[in-house]
């Protein structure tokens, strides 16, 4: 990929432009995700999380900027780095954490874990252990919404690694020919596992991967929650007006590497520093203070509250029982 994909459209629409966001809600949700993820990281280090967990610290602005723009009835389909999407879509963090630890009160009974959180009542089609796996699920939900005429929109999230799954191209093509109300959101954090995006991804730009199907495609500063939100609102408006799919490429960064425990020797420090300076929480906190939406003290208070919430969730999840053996073979068939 050329340098062009790194050039991001800077966001930050003013309220005069029709964005009546609750800035503090965006901030609080991002903070909740960050605290949640850092707790998961500690639990993982302590050996309390079965299997693999992939954390989204650093990517909160894309999670929250997209999901909080949606209506309750809208669908999302997430991926393996999906805790943030679940939290933003409303899954209670205690039930989410219990799920990640494989405990009985987990949102899926403790059977599914980090990579397979399905929360259909909240219209979350699931995190997904298959790279690209959620893409057709969202497109299909959009097809259903169109068939019913009920107006919901569906969003699928996927990483830069999924750009090279043929499945994405198939779904983009169908979404385009059928004008489906679906938004494709690439959370481009520059790496798929230990491989740099540039090494495995051909072509002049990531946007072009949507444009080739005639899908309006835009690169967004994925570290700026308002930019993400603005782009999402545009895409939502198009979708609800029957104008079909959109493609958002959100450039972002995963602080913790591929999975909790990744040593990240494949990254250089320069790069890390550059991205850390863009931390979506730090930068947005500054903005909020500068805009006088909150004082530093008020933000500290929010952080305290969020920290307490997460602490309670950790206590709940750790204390929760393992699922009973009798549940092992439940819900295979109806």
């Amino acid at each position: 990929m050329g340098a062009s994909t790194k050039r991001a459209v800077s966001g930050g629409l003013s309220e005069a432009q029709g964005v009546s966001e609750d800035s503090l809600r965006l901030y609080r949700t991002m903070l909740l995700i960050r605290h949640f993820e850092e707790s998961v990281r500690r639990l993982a280090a302590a050996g309390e999380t079965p299997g693999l967990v992939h954390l989204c610290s650093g990517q909160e602005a894309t999670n929250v900027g997209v999901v909080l723009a949606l209506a309750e009835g809208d669908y999302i389909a997430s991926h393996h780095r999906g805790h943030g999407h679940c939290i933003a879509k409303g899954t209670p963090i205690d039930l989410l954490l219990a799920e990640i630890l494989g405990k009985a009160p987990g949102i899926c009974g403790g059977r599914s874990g980090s990579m397979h959180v399905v929360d259909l009542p909240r219209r979350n089609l699931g995190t997904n252990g298959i790279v690209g796996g959620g893409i057709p699920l969202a497109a299909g939900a959009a097809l259903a919404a169109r068939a019913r005429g009920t107006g919901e929109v569906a969003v699928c999230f996927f990483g830069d690694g999924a750009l090279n799954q043929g499945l994405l191209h198939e779904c983009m093509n169908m979404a385009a020919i059928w004008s489906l109300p679906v938004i494709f959101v690439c959370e481009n954090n520059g790496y798929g596992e230990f491989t740099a995006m540039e090494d495995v991804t051909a072509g002049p730009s990531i946007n072009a991967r949507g444009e080739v199907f005639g899908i309006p495609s835009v690169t967004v500063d994925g570290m700026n929650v308002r930019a993400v939100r603005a782009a999402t609102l545009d895409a939502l408006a198009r979708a609800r007006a029957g104008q079909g799919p959109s493609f958002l490429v959100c450039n972002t960064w995963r602080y913790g590497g591929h999975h909790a425990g990744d040593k990240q020797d494949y990254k250089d420090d320069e790069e890390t520093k550059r991205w850390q300076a863009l931390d979506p929480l730090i930068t947005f906190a500054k903005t909020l203070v500068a805009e006088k939406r909150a004082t530093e003290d008020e933000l500290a208070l929010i952080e305290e509250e969020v920290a307490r919430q997460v602490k309670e969730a950790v206590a709940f999840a750790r204390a929760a029982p393992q699922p009973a053996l009798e549940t092992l073979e439940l819900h295979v068939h109806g």
Partner: protein
Amino acid sequence: MAEMITFREGVLEALFEEMRADPSVILMGEDVGAAGGVFQQTKGLFEEFGARRIIDTPISESGAFGMAIGAAMAGMRPVFEVMFGDFMTLCMDQLVNQAAKVRYMSNGAATVPLVLRTTMGVGAGLGPQHSQGFHAWAAHVPGLKIVVPSDAADARVLMKAAIRDDDPVLFFEDRLLYAAKAQARDADESLPLGRGRILRAGRDVTLIAIGRMVGVARAAAEELAREGIEAEIVDPRSLVPLDEALLLDSVKRTHRALVMDAAPLRYGVTGEVAAVLSEKAFDWLDAPVGRLGAVDTPVPISRSLESFVCPTPARVAAAVRKMM
């Protein structure tokens, strides 16, 4: 209703009826719309239900099937066509890693009420990549249900049951049966999945067959009857759920069993069925449970070779004679 219908019509009638009864039923596939399906198996649906419910997909099996799953999770009841069973290979990820597991992964909160309808069949010279049936694979995957109808009447009621079922159901249609007629059963009769049927009573041996093999078993039974051997024919109809009780009951009466399939024998469905019978009817068996399947080769197009691929009445009869 005592009308004779073809297998093709049986499935099509089921689709018409279920689509009329339930607006959430949609059909997706290649050339299923105005063209009426490459086997004319969807004829008339597009005219009645239109492009919103009869959806012609691009040649994108994996994406389109994945979308059917998403639509099912979001409240529709899609019937998804895979034109030739051989192309199911392209849907395996969505089928196995998504559709089959959603109910389990969501702890029962989400379901995937869809039907994957596909064709199989050796005998039309279609060759290695257009003759396969992968019901054995699907049957191995927890969370899927597998139906293999053997005649027009069953095809109709089983398709209705499959559409109404809240789990992903795979429905395997043998193209060589498409023109075969049977007497349709009552329109309202809907069969729960998992009930087999006895097609012919007999005291000497149980022939267990699905799909097109049922007809082969019937022909073999007639041949054997002329020699005084009375074969009972049992069609389990679905491989998952499997009507074990019916099979065991028959074998315990006849003391002999032969399990048949039109897909390659090795590691196919006959192994499971034979193993179950061998274990659970051990003390009743007077001979080892026999198995007949297709030869373990790709399917050749040549007529001289193709006709030796699948079990024939003569081969079935010969296998039974050896058991007696």
